[in-house]
């Protein structure tokens, strides 16, 4: 246990250090531009034609973040406010805080991404296992592999555009019916409360965004599982199992599959750690009300505090998730040597 404790401490230090570096970078970047960040915000606000609340906003900012003081004081108060969960105010919709806007969007992203990541992992892994076991040289296997490769190479947001064109626009033009093109639900339906209709409406709206993520990540899961399965097939214990006269089904699922799946699990953990910032552009293309759409609108309205907040939150979530993976992984796979850097 002592080695594990030392390993834990090392990981925690790395986590703290990388969080600190990320926060510092987020703090420094806007201050590299000449001039007061507040002046820049004011100027951008007047460009946008908004003057309501501008003065209050500036006063509030100065008070909280000490913008009229020296850089070091600013840095300290920035970190202090951050630790209290204060990410500042949105400029685009002033009295609302950045934290509030983010907390409204984040369930959509986590919901969409966790479901799609797990679904595509399951489908890809099972397909890869079946085809990897049956052999690489059948026509079906080749066809599948080229298709998977194509899906793997196409970026998800390009695929999203294609889906949007064919299944939302083109289908509606030809059949008079198509998938929804934007939003997370039909506006107004949420007022009736959390009913079955609302849930179905959400699922209906998320089909195309989900497909764009599932299909493009499917390729990778399929390819890696297939090659793992082919490797495992040549191992001695498979030969042994065959010699024992076990049925092919048992050998495949209980012997080959269980051994081949380990790297896939790591892959899933890594994919899950990135879900908050994972598919920002799909949300942009489908106007899906998650983090990506929030970020896109923040960029469009030059809402720098909101951009900063989104970016910071995603970075922190990734760092934290990486830390959790590092903690759990040695417990799952004892072959990982902890405490020693390669």
């Amino acid at each position, binding site marked *: 246990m002592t080695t594990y404790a030392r390993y834990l401490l090392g990981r925690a230090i790395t986590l703290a250090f*990388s969080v600190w570096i990320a926060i510092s970078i987020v703090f420094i970047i806007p201050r590299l531009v000449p001039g007061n960040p507040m002046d820049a915000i004011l100027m951008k606000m007047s460009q946008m034609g908004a003057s309501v609340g501008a003065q209050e906003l500036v006063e509030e900012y100065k008070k909280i973040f000490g913008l009229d003081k020296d850089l070091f004081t600013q840095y300290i108060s920035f970190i202090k406010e951050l630790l209290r969960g204060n990410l500042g105010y949105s400029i685009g919709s002033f009295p609302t805080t950045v934290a509030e806007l983010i907390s409204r969007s984040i369930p959509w992203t986590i919901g969409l991404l966790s479901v799609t990541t797990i679904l595509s992992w399951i489908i890809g892994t099972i397909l890869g296992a079946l085809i990897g076991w049956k052999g690489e040289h059948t026509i079906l296997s080749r066809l599948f592999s080229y298709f998977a490769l194509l899906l793997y190479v196409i*970026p998800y947001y390009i695929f999203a555009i294609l889906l949007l*064109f064919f299944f939302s*626009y083109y289908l509606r033009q030809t059949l008079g019916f198509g998938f929804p093109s934007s939003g997370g639900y039909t506006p107004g339906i949420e007022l009736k409360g959390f009913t079955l209709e609302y849930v179905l409406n959400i699922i209906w709206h998320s089909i195309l965004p989900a497909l764009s993520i599932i299909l493009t990540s499917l390729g990778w899961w399929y390819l890696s599982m297939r090659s793992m399965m082919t490797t495992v097939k040549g191992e001695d214990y498979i030969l042994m199992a065959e010699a024992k006269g076990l049925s092919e089904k048992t050998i495949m699922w209980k012997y080959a599959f269980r051994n081949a799946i380990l790297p896939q699990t790591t892959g899933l953990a890594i994919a899950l750690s990135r879900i908050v910032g994972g598919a920002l552009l799909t949300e942009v293309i489908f106007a899906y009300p998650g983090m990506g759409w929030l970020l896109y609108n923040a960029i469009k309205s*030059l809402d720098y505090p909101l*951009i900063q907040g989104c970016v910071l939150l995603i970075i922190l979530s990734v760092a934290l998730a990486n830390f959790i993976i590092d903690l759990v992984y040695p417990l799952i796979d004892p072959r990982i040597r902890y405490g020693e850097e390669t």
Partner: protein
Amino acid sequence: MKSTKIYRHLSKIKGNKKFFAGAFTVAFIYFISIIGSFILPSEYYRTGSFEPALPPNTKNFMGTDCLGRDILAQLFRGIQNSYKIGFIAATLGTIIGATIGFISGYYGGFIDKVINVIVDVFLSVPSLLFLILIAALISGGVTVETMALIICITNWSWPARQVRAQAMSLKRREFVYLSKLSGMGSMEIIVKELMPHMFQWMGANFINAFLSAVLTEAGLSILGLGPQRDVTLGVMIYWALSYSAIFRGMWWWIFPPVVTLIIVFFSLYILHVGLDEIINPKSKKV
């Protein structure tokens, strides 16, 4: 001795269909775009040169967009700019990353530790995020060249990590000890003995970095952070999406950049796989 080695590589390249197919397509697309730019005058992609939203016709082979610009002319220009971003970002990223990684791996010690943590941060954070922060800050002033430099800020970390590992293993090999014994200076060892081992790998990394730079450019541009005064493949998609070309049924606007990007990605990937097979004959991918 050296010439036989080169010959061996050449013969391997000759036999690799993936490498050839990929390299040919990538080069062919660029070649066509250059020729095309000579044929179509640059006014063609200026606003208001034609009637807006024309479907493909004999004068505008791919039609025009909502601002009356010829799509084919934009596409040619966009391909060149996207390639330019890919080239600059990949070259600088590979060189900077390799240098940092090399210093870190070869000298070790405190520098190595510091660099390692920084590389860790850059590798674990989705790089698009840092780029969004920076690009949002200088939005309005982004050109094709600054776009390439912005992408460089994050894409050095992967080659740095890779080269560090290589440098660490190389410096323990016997021929390095031998050259030290024979009185070569450390600079001489690096340049004469170690660099040649890196070149092949740097070539493969370059292709990969090129691909990811084109990809990142498209992503940033779709978010609205691309170059404003020039056109890239990503910027074309951004315009098409902002004018909701899809729902106006203007397939001739959205499809050219999308299909071009898919072809470019696919051929770059094939090229990368082919190159990988040439360099490490043992590893076999799909």
